């Protein structure tokens, strides 16, 4: 792995160049990842909590047309969508967010390759930033990640002092991106950054994901689900702020009798009508079954299918939950028969 030193001033010069070339530069704010218009807005704070909403919508928009149609007497004609291939550079991605695109990639390339997702994902350039702060809801260390994880980043930044960052070049994509700017880079020493990353305060692992995997397999009918099912209010806040939740719904919208578009929208498994069949039957008719699905999907089904946990441990869902349901608390107490989910 290649490590360089770059000063903050030079890093900002690169950012300015990215914007000037007409590419999109994203950076996390308190509420959302936002598009940077002026480089003086960039904060690059290692001690910030994850934003309220993840950057997911830039690679998997909350709503997008997949085709347009026009009907005539005997025919339907379709117009395909061309996604503009603008490069998106995400600067200062939290280590928990950086890996999310890689996790979702499995799903979107499983039985069918989703060109919308893939085109956007290929245009993504992730510059990760070490994280030095956690709160009661963070649990990245429990899901095979850490505040200094380079997983998913193309380039990774570690602040060595106030004005300088150690820049690790992780992937070929990152190498390609940084090569025009090699004049800004100074040779670095891996020992220095290692000293910093080793001393970062990390959240204690709250649960063992393989134990959770086992438990979920054996406790599909556990009475524990009922407790959390009673509490949950069936909104999809948890799914929509999540950086890896990827369920979607297809719906047609018409302009007129003859013209319209087919939209692909976010959907959430906690909604009552998520699994409602046309017949009126609903296999997940009560909230406890829906919550069980959410946990199982994240910690069991996805592991079965792709070998990866569908969770980055950012804690957004718990932090923002209207009734403070904490997914970390639930999975870490699953083996403890004394503790019910709801208490």
């Amino acid at each position, binding site marked *: 792995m290649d490590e360089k030193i770059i000063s903050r001033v030079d890093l900002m010069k690169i950012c300015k160049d990215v914007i000037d070339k007409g590419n999109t530069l994203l950076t996390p704010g308190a509420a959302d990842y936002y598009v940077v218009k002026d480089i003086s807005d960039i904060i690059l704070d290692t001690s910030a909590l994850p934003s*309220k909403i993840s950057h997911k919508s830039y690679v998997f928009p909350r*709503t997008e047309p997949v085709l347009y149609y026009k009907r005539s007497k005997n025919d339907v004609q379709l117009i395909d969508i061309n996604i503009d291939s603008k490069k998106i550079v995400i600067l200062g991605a939290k280590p928990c967010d950086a890996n999310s695109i890689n996790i979702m990639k499995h799903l979107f390339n499983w039985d069918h390759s989703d060109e919308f997702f893939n085109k956007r994902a290929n245009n993504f350039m992730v510059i990760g930033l070490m994280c030095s702060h956690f709160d009661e809801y963070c649990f990245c260390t429990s899901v095979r990640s850490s505040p200094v994880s380079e997983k998913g980043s193309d380039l990774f930044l570690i602040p060595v002092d106030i004005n300088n960052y150690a820049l690790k070049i992780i992937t070929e994509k990152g190498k390609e991106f940084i090569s025009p700017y090699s004049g800004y880079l100074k040779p670095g020493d891996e020992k220095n950054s290692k000293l910093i990353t080793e001393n970062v305060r990390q959240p204690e692992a709250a649960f063992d994901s393989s134990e959770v995997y086992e438990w979920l397999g054996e406790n599909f009918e556990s009475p524990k689900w009922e407790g959390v099912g009673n509490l949950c209010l069936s909104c999809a806040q948890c799914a*929509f702020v999540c950086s890896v939740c990827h369920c979607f719904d297809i719906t047609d919208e018409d302009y007129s009798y003859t013209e319209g578009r087919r*939209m692909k929208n976010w959907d959430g498994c906690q909604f009552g009508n998520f699994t409602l069949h046309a017949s009126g039957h609903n296999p997940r008719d009560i909230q406890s079954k829906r919550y069980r699905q959410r946990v199982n999907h994240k910690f069991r089904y996805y592991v079965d299918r792709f070998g990866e946990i569908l969770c980055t441990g950012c804690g957004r869902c718990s932090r923002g939950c209207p009734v403070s349901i904490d997914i970390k608390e639930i999975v870490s107490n699953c083996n403890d028969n004394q503790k019910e989910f709801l208490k």
Partner: protein
Amino acid sequence: MNELIKHAKELLEKGEVAAVIGYRQVSEKRTKPVIITEPEETRALVFNEYCLNNLAVYLTKARIKLLGRKNNKSFKLAITAKPCDVHSIVALIQENQIDRDKIHIISFNCHGVVKDFGFDFNGDNLSSKCITCETHKPLYYDKLLGEVKETPQARDSALERIKEIERMPHNERFEFFRSEFDKCIKCYACRAVCPLCYCQRCITDKTIPCWIETSSHQRGNFAWNVIRAFHLSGRCTGCGECDRVCPADIPLSLINRKMTIEANNLFSFVSGRSLETPTLVGSFNEKDNDELFM
């Protein structure tokens, strides 16, 4: 606090109620709802400035209603409610969603709550509903607990914002709300958390014909937020939960507040304040204002 626990325990032991809906502490500055059915579990119950949730939302949930039947006990449910949450309970009783006889209200002398979890309790962090609150003592209750304390003073910035919007020309107002609603991700947390959004099937879930587009584009978001606000006008009791839970920070209670002011101006009515007056949109008066009509 001991009084609350003692009272709740007594209720459950005597079998007077099937469950107690209350708050429990999860960390120093955060509580969460808890539904208690066993007397010994009542020790978790708390009430303080961090009890933000409006628990009245649980009263209309079919699963919770079933709790009593399942345990073969009485149907009554006990609920710990802030005085402002009692307004929601009153509105639900008025709209025939729950029965006064089946609800045991444990309420408190309230001196305000924080605007969100994690903040210190003082004037700057006071929830906006508490700034203009006139009911520090609940209007209806079966058990009153807690001591009377002074509410911190704060500026009513929400009203200032409403006035500010009203001064804008119409196209600017439209643009303001368009950009605010554009942030909406349609997670429907505002709907889920509202005690008065109790419809078994929401109008947005009815898609044949599709009146409110389910897509979260600007037009769909605009339609959803306008209709949500309309369905709550004259009914909203002003608990401000929608505002608190919105992950996109849309000022939803601004519109709700405005409609509450209008209801008060037009009909001298505030929702959830009295069990005797009928609901506003569910009733009519032949002598209502006719100015609007040609």
